[in-house]
């Protein structure tokens, strides 16, 4: 029974979805920080985040994280896939903003500025992936040099 649950479709879907938690967490923090940041720069508004808005933002961020798992899992990274993830993340952000009307009481510029910041956030995450590739290239060449020096048949 226990073994059946571990191998079940639900268990696999659940573990796959938990891979999105890292992205979800980062984006949720960004959403909250930027949302509250508007309260500081807009002098005549008292901005606070209510429970339902926070839940809406959390699920929106979970969707962005799931899209990342679909488009750019670690073993399938490419420029086209990264662009597809950024595009889907942007669409999700804009649709969520329009659907939940997070900025209905804010000045008009807050909505596009918030969206641009989220796109920048995704670009920075893609940049991190490419930095990781660069780091891995360095490790590969360092280990190649070690391999060639250690076991070179001409030296033996």
């Amino acid at each position, binding site marked *: 029974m226990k073994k059946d649950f571990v191998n079940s479709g639900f268990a696999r879907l659940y573990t796959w979805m938990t891979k999105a938690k890292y992205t979800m967490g980062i984006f949720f923090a960004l959403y909250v920080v930027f949302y509250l940041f508007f309260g500081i720069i807009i002098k005549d508004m008292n901005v606070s985040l209510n429970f339902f808005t926070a839940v809406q933002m959390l699920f929106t961020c979970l969707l962005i994280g799931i899209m990342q798992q679909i488009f750019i899992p670690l073993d399938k*990274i490419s420029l086209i896939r990264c662009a597809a993830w950024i595009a889907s993340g942007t669409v999700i952000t804009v649709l969520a903003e329009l659907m939940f009307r997070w900025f209905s009481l804010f000045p008009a510029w807050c909505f596009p500025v918030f969206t641009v910041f989220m796109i920048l956030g995704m670009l920075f995450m893609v940049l991190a992936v490419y930095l990781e590739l660069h780091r891995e290239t360095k490790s590969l060449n360092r280990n190649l040099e070690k*391999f*060639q020096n250690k*076991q070179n*048949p001409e030296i033996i």
Partner: protein
Amino acid sequence: MKIRVEHGEFPENEIVLRCKELDEEMMEVLALLRERSAKIICFKDGETHFLLPGDILYAEAVDGRIFIYTSDAVYETHQSLSALLNKHEEVGLVRIGKAQLCNLYHVARLKSLPNSRIEITLKNNERLIASRHYAQNLKEMLGLLE
């Protein structure tokens, strides 16, 4: 066991083993030397050639035929890629694709690519790509994966 390497103007490379008796250690050294000097029979322009395994830059299967690339020529062999790899892995051969082997001692640099592939630039500037599956194999051989 003492190892001494003499550099000088010798007519050809020579290895002399001195021992009281052929013990296990010496037999291992002899086996290694024999393995290294084992040549691969291959063909080019209707002629038969004997190739040192260490001279292979890379080998690939094309339409069921196996081609061996060295720094100055391309040869065909009747051995399969798996047979080449099994017999001559110690010269640095590693599988980088379903139909390609590469000699790590002739690699100038490696580059990690998106999609978990690795670009291999040989010392003669030829470029090969290790596929996603075999890139893991390559990383393992280089000690990057446990």
